[in-house]
């Protein structure tokens, strides 16, 4: 059963610029313009684009490694991974058999649409089903930059505390899915899933939440299912 989505991005209007009166000049307009171009290009090629955001160390790369392994016979996956410096994450992903390209931002704390555009121009995207973008670890700045994605997925590890959503409201406001990661550590840390859920729902009642662990594999099938539904939806659009 494929769920019917009315539109892919439920919180699109809260990202980037809003309509402003003529006297105002929105500073993210240039970014949004490129983001729109990316979205068009990827839609034409029927590639699902997922932007993963979180603090550093919440488990984005680990999740992508696990995802790549689990989906390798089903879908063709590519990853664009942003970091301030080093190619370590792309190397880790390639070791797990995932086709990854590193974007080093030379100190910029977020990815911008222009960086994605330049990267995809260099990539051979033929036959790709999902393009994951691993954003720079930061819950603040990446929230303002639309990368042309279909979905924004924010990770929060059980070791980070359950009080984070309201500290970084814009990020949670603009995410369609929240993944609670490292749930294998829940018995050892003071993290209440109900607290996090309440915080997330206060900000955005429509946000979905999946609690999983890339290490133990708990609920990875729920995440796979979430992805599969959306890949198929994108293909049939």
């Amino acid at each position, binding site marked *: 059963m494929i769920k019917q989505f009315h539109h892919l991005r439920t919180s699109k209007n809260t990202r980037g610029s809003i309509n402003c009166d003529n006297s105002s000049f929105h500073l993210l307009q240039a970014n949004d313009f490129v983001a729109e171009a990316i979205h068009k290009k990827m839609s034409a090629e029927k590639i699902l684009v997922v932007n993963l955001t979180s603090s550093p160390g919440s488990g984005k790369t680990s999740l992508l490694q696990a995802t790549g392994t689990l989906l390798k016979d089903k879908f063709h996956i590519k990853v664009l991974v942003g970091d301030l410096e080093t190619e370590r994450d792309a190397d880790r992903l390639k070791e797990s058999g995932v086709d990854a390209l590193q974007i080093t931002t030379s100190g*910029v704390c977020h990815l911008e649409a222009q960086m994605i555009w330049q990267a995809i121009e260099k990539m051979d995207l033929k036959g790709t089903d999902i393009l994951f973008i691993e954003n720079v670890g930061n819950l603040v700045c990446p929230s303002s930059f639309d990368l042309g994605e279909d979905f924004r997925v924010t990770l929060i590890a059980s070791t980070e505390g359950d009080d984070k959503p309201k500290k970084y409201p814009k990020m949670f406001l603009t995410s369609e899915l929240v993944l609670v990661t490292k749930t294998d550590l829940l018995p050892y840390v003071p993290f209440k899933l109900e607290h996090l859920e309440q915080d997330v729902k206060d900000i955005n*009642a429509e946000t979905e939440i999946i609690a999983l662990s890339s290490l133990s594999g708990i609920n990875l099938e729920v995440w796979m299912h979430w992805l599969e539904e959306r890949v198929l939806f994108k293909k049939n659009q």
Partner: protein
Amino acid sequence: MHELSIIHQVGAYIISTHSEAELQQIEAFEMHLGQLSNIHPDLLQNAYLAYQETHPIFNKILLKTTLIPTEIYCNQCHQTTQVEHYKFQCKFCLTPSQNIVKGNELTIHKIIFKDLL
């Protein structure tokens, strides 16, 4: 966190849209900063100080900032209410809403010229 790059864009925009003579006549510009823009007014002022160092044409131009609180529109009762404690729900009927009408601003709202007597 990206206040410095924002102020560089603002400066470049103002320079590109005004002649040298017009720039001399600018007294101030006002920016609207939505609560959700993640731009801190004090950090923006600091960034502007650094920008003025390298762009002396801005030395006599003041940066004014106005913080815009977050407001949502309720589709149920058609009212606009302010968001408090990051609870995005209508104050009247308690329906959740992500229909943000104010709070995302990151704009040059106004450029103020000296009074030409």
